[in-house]
């Protein structure tokens, strides 16, 4: 079972989904936390490729990039990679909405290979079969004091075996370590010390 201290552990041997602007950062965060070879399935027409020098430590040498030319090949690659036992994490970027049929097939493939999958989907194009769905947004650090932090807002809007929550995280993109940022609240004290 997942512990409350680390809510970002993806349930193993299941397929999860991430959407929003910060989904690639979330995928890399998960990649750094999974051992073993990593497979990133990226359609051939997508211009954004991972930049090796910007990846978290230890991710670059484990990463394999697949560039299938069609959506059918992409779905086939996802299933094939999920069924392979040695793979640690499969990250894929399907461009079309995933049907329930495709999502269910992926779950079965993930259970066969005991591999975790993470689909980076366009907003609202997920499948109902997903274990969890994460909404990921990069967040600006509002104050001068937090200027050196890289904030992310990660919240689940679907969770088959838990509750829906949201977190604000400071993760700098270099290591698996991260810091929770406590919730902002209304300020009750006066802004300036009273004279």
């Amino acid at each position, binding site marked *: 079972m997942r512990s409350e201290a680390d809510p970002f552990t993806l349930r193993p041997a299941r397929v999860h989904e991430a959407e929003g602007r910060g989904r690639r950062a979330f995928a890399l965060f998960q990649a750094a936390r999974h051992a073993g070879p990593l497979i990133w399935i990226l359609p051939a027409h997508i211009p954004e*490729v*991972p930049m090796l020098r910007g990846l978290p430590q230890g991710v670059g*040498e484990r990463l394999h990039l697949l560039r299938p030319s069609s959506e059918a090949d992409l779905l086939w*690659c996802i299933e*094939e990679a999920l069924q392979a036992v*040695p793979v640690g994490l499969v990250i894929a970027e399907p461009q079309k909405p995933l049907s329930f049929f495709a999502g269910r097939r992926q779950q079965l493939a993930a259970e066969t290979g005991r591999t975790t999958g993470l689909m980076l989907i366009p907003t609202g194009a997920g499948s109902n079969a997903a274990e969890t769905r994460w909404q990921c947004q990069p967040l*600006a650090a509002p104050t001068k004091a937090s200027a050196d932090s890289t904030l992310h807002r990660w919240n689940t809007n679907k969770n088959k075996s838990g509750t829906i929550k949201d977190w604000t995280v400071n993760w*700098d993109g270099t290591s698996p370590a991260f810091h929770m940022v406590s919730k902002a609240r209304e300020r009750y004290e006066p802004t300036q010390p009273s004279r």
Partner: protein
Amino acid sequence: MALADARAICQDLATRPADLAREAAALTALCRWTGRYAPMVARDSADGLMADISGVPHLFGGEAALREDLQSRLERAGLTVSSAIAGTRGAAHALARHGGGIVPDGRLAEGIGHLPISALRLDHDTVSGLARMGLSRIADLIPLPRAPLARRFGQSLVMRLDRALGQYAEPVAAAANAPHFGVRMTLPEPIGLQSDVMAALERLLARLCDKLAQHQMGARRVRLELHRVDQGAAQVEIGLARPMNDAARIVALFVKGVDKIEAGFGIDALRLTAPVIEPLAPEQISAHHRVQPEHALADLLSSLGNRIGFDRVLRLLPAESLIPERSHKIAPAAYSAAEPMPAQTGPQRPITLFSPEAVTGPSGNPPARFRWRRMHFTTLRATGPERITPEWWFDDPAWRDGLRDYWRVETEQGPRLWLFSTPQTAQGSPNWYVQGEFA
């Protein structure tokens, strides 16, 4: 004659540098062709072939007819050759390089006696030493007593002479043929079922893999040719992510290809070849018969590569360059090994990189407000600039604008972008582009 002298004599002399590798390849091909005259054919020094034709000439109607046949065939092929037939290897070598001809059986001494001593495959010092003593022809050498000759010029001279005269045996040492990695099977009755083809394939693969393992080789590509009874042919070819000679793992990759084959009226012959092979050292087999993780990954990459193409199964490799596009290489995973990433120093790099996209409506330096991909952004803070100069030794059209100033721009809307400007452009204000996105 030196080249300069030759040019002085003939001013429009055409010269080409010798291509030894291609010459050797051509000679090897000729060596295979010469197999029609003799079972044992070997290369003889850099420019000749030596065939052992004992017992063969009567098939061509005698030695003279055989030589005539050889000469005319090669002449028709456009080759100018000189050939000789003699009782010993040394004599044939000597005669072929000095006019050619046939030495009748048992008359070796007369046949090669008139040739110069250098025809005996001797080194230059021995030849000049003999010439100083007034010995210039082989006939001069034959009547001399052997012992003083050996003492003065070494054993090799006597040995060469004895070999040329047949007093010392010298067989034609033909090199062994390179192993051929191909097996075939013809069937008494045509087959059509997929399971039958797979069973035949398994038998062929077992034989091919045994042969590969025996030579410590692994296949990188395996090709299956199927011949149908109606003279049609089909072909299935698979690639492997690493050299392999394990039949059970290769056969799994053929399933998809064999499934698509049209059997027609039946298949009656199969041929399995390994067109691309690589050395593969024997490996320790684990006691538990468990598939090792790297083998399992190679199997996955093979099956992925066979469907989407091996050029689409990629790996990122570090490269020595400060230019963002060239700071890593994207290489096919099947033909490269993972390299550890050197420790990252210097400014932070984005997680994704794309070709530069111009922003519209930038204001200020760095821009306080801009539009990119139909979104408005307001800069919260910008880190930089990091100046990167183009690599002048590459002519990269993307870097024609000169040097670039890179900024990490944190926007109020959230995204952290990698912007750059080109201060060296001819226009008054620099252009701004987005090239990456940070975590």
